C-alpha cells in the first residue's frame, strides 16, 4: 500500500473528477493519464529520487492510479445513483429498449434482455441500487481506467526522463 501511496492519492482525485460534472467536462479523457503522471511526480517527491525512472515502475504506478480511480469513481457513481435514484441508464431507458428491439437475436433472448433491463430500471428507481448495474460500472471503469492509467504512466516516465536528461546535459 505504502509503495503505491501516490497512486492512491492521485487515483482518488481522478475518481472524484470523473464524477463531478464541471470537473469532468474540463479534462475529459485526460483525467486518468494526467493522474498517472502526477502520481509518478508525487512518488519521486516522497522517495526523494532524482535519477531516471524505470519504465516498468511508471507503468505500475499508472496502472494502480487507474485501478484506484476506477474504484473511487465507481463508489461515487453508485453513491450518487443511490441518493438521486436516477442515472444514465434510467434517462436512456426508452432508447435502450428500442436499440435492443433492433438486435438480430432470437425473440426469447430479446425478451430476457428486456426483462433484465426492466429489473435494473425498477431497482434503481425504487432502491437506488442494482447489482447488475453496479457490476457493469465497476467492470467498465476497471477495464478502461487501468488501460488509460498504464498509458499515462508510460508516457509520464518518458517525459520526466527526458527532462532529467536535458537538465543533466546542462549541468
Amino acid at each position: 500500500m505504502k509503495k503505491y501511496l501516490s497512486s492512491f492519492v492521485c487515483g482518488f482525485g481522478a475518481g472524484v473528477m470523473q464524477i463531478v460534472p464541471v470537473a469532468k467536462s474540463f479534462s475529459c479523457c485526460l483525467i486518468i493519464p494526467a493522474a498517472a503522471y502526477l502520481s509518478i511526480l508525487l512518488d519521486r517527491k516522497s522517495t526523494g529520487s532524482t535519477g531516471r525512472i524505470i519504465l516498468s515502475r511508471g507503468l505500475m504506478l499508472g496502472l494502480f492510479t487507474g485501478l484506484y480511480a476506477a474504484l473511487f469513481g465507481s463508489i461515487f457513481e453508485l453513491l450518487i445513483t443511490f441518493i438521486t435514484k436516477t442515472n444514465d441508464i434510467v434517462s436512456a431507458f426508452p432508447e435502450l429498449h428500442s436499440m435492443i428491439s433492433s438486435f438480430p437475436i432470437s425473440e426469447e433472448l430479446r425478451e430476457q434482455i428486456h426483462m433484465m433491463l426492466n429489473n435494473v430500471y425498477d431497482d434503481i428507481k425504487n432502491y437506488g441500487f442494482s447489482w447488475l448495474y453496479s457490476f457493469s460500472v465497476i467492470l467498465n471503469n476497471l477495464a478502461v481506467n487501468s488501460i488509460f492509467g498504464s498509458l499515462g504512466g508510460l508516457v509520464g516516465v518518458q517525459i520526466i526522463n527526458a527532462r532529467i536528461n536535458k537538465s543533466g546535459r546542462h549541468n
Partner: protein
Amino acid sequence: MLLRSTLFILIFLWLAGVFSELLLHVSNVFSFLRFFTGGFYSAVCHQNPSKVIEYGGFSTLVCARCLGIYFGALSAALLNLFRKINLPDVKLFYFASLIMFTDVVFVKFSVYSYNKNIAFLSGIFWGMILFAYISVGLSTLIHDLRTVQEK
C-alpha cells in the same frame, strides 16, 4: 513490427467503436457493439451532446477533442507501420499540450465559444505526439523485460 501492427489494429478498433452508431445502421450485426461501447466510452469522455460530432443523424460516442486525439494516434500508428517513429522532443509535447490547454481555458473563460473544429485539430496534433511516446515506451519496455529475462 508485431508491436507496431498490434498498436495500429487496437487504435483502429477503438476508433471504430466511436462510430458504432453509424455501424449500427450499416448492419444489424454491429448492434451488439453499440450496446457495449456506449458505457465503455462514457468512462473516458463526458460525451456532452453539444461537443460530440454529428453526421447525418448519428453522433460519435466521444467529444470532438477526444476524437481528434484518437485520429491523431491512428495517423501516427499508420505512419509508424512504414517508418519507425522516434521519440519526439519533449518541447513538442509541451507545445501540443499548450495548444490544447489554451483552447480548453479560453472556452471555459468564454474568450470564445466551443468550436468543434479547433477542439478536433488540437486533439489530432496532441494524439500524434502522444502515440510516439506510447509506441517508443512500449518497445523500450518490451526490450527491457527481454533483457531481464535473458539475464
